[in-house]
């Protein structure tokens, strides 16, 4: 699999990661070699195999799921404690709408 620097930039935009020029070359090389390696999965015929998303335990739903009841969650003050910028009970971010 040949990953180009253009593909790297496309994926980086999806992942919200800034990639500067040298890094694009490194990502392209790394991703190409790892994708070549994982290509070995195609040796296996999996047409009749169900995908496994999760290790499921045998307990019934009523045991594993709690009641859908209202209860106190993390208080506002604690929720904002680690915010890089907060004010008036909100998280603050750079302006998103032009007036």
């Amino acid at each position, binding site marked *: 699999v040949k990953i180009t620097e253009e593909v790297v930039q496309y994926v980086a935009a999806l*992942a919200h990661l800034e990639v500067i020029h040298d890094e694009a070359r490194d990502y392209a090389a790394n991703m190409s070699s790892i994708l070549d390696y994982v290509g070995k999965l195609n040796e296996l015929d999996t047409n009749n195999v169900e995908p496994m998303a999760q290790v499921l335990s045998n307990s019934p739903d009523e045991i*594993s799921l709690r009641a859908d009841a209202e209860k106190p969650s993390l208080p506002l003050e604690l929720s904002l404690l680690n915010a890089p910028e907060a004010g008036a009970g909100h998280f603050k971010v750079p302006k*998103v709408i032009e007036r």
Partner: protein
Amino acid sequence: MSIDIRKFTVAEIRALIASKKISAQEICKASLEQIAAENPRNNSLITVMADRAMAQAKQIDSLAADGETLPALAGVPVAVKDVINIRGVRNTCGSRILEKFVSPYTATAVERIEKAGAVVVGKANCDEFAMGSSNENSAYGDVRNPVDLERVPGGSSGGSAAAVAAGMAVTSLGSDTGGSIRQPASFCGVVGLMPTYGRISRYGLVAYASSLDHIGPLSQTVSDTAAMLGVMAGPDPMDSTASAIPVPDYVAELQGSVKGLRIGVPKEYFAQGLSSSVRAKVDAGIRTLSSMGCETVEITMPHTEYAVACYYIVATAEASANLARYDGVRYGLRNSKAATLNEMYKKTRHDGFGAEVKRRIMLGTYVLSAGYYDAYYRKAQRVRSLIAQDFSRAFEKVDVIVTPVAPTPAFKLGEKTADPLEMYLSDIYTITGSLAGVPGISVPCGLVPANPDGTGSLLPIGIQIFARHFDEARLLRLAHHFEMAGGFKGN
């Protein structure tokens, strides 16, 4: 002359405090002194929690003074991997992006051990967001193996393993997604358990790959491992995957016979790539198990060679989704030079994440992107079924499966950092069990010379035991009997 806490098991510490032969504060002080002496050398702890720990120890001593029955882990110094939250304590995940993050709540596993009297002495260094096999991906510096400081402790729970090996804590919490408890346990000569998926609540464990993440203990002995598991296991309203299957008394279950136990030895785990010195020790370990009255059976697990490829698709896909939350808005680092929101996200993530984390986010985003989802992610999930099936078929014939933990002993710092793929392949024997969700343990099984010609320092090797889902009692019993039979730590 200070106390070497490595000499004591969890049960012994509790008994010594109860009979007032030694105080919890003396044990805690010994732990903190050892941390002061050794942490500058091995860098296994990111945060030392001296005041909080001493206050906890004092409470245990007043319980003892009042003649109260002490809880199971009373006065036991514990290190907690820095991906597991403790309210009011910094939780960095080994990342620059969370350098100043202070946890607003406590993980269920930590809450339970503290309720059982454990004294948390510090937060253990690890690979950034638990991504790595050598603890060389931490923003807070490499951890060094206490057995040989030129070598890695393994990863990603390298700090948790090194802290126990160096006598800085009696036991520790790690997390295991592809081998991150078992491989460092093997490299540092301690016992490391990845329990069944769902045995211990993941609430408060910072997510890397949610369908594969496990919390588990690292300890000097199997009995300490059993004590820790028993306290942490069980359902939790905060994690719907935490199972309600009853929790046995794992310590009591260590007794009893292992005679007649059927042990599967899968030939795929002893193929090309396994170093001859490791192989010799694991073979000797299997002979020991036979001499204990176990029956060994050669089995086949034909999809083993696909596990690493399967894992690096599933795990990176889940990681790319889980790590989307680090965007400079609610917590963590923010690049304040960006003019727009989108630019702020991108620059913050560029500045805050290290190379390996970015590599995995990129790979995970790619395999989930339009046009590639079926070819990579869906394909890997199907292969995961086949790997899980290898285990369920094997467990129709045998009670446990015994394998090496890692292909080599601890390697040198810097030896594998140039090639990510080579580093990934060092997890080949542990990743299978992670994908299947079965419990796996690494127990010390001997020492091997660092160099193939028989020279160099002697390095620890672990042997791995897998069991059926939720069959930790049998797993720990066999591991305990193996430990008793061997005295493997010193030969």
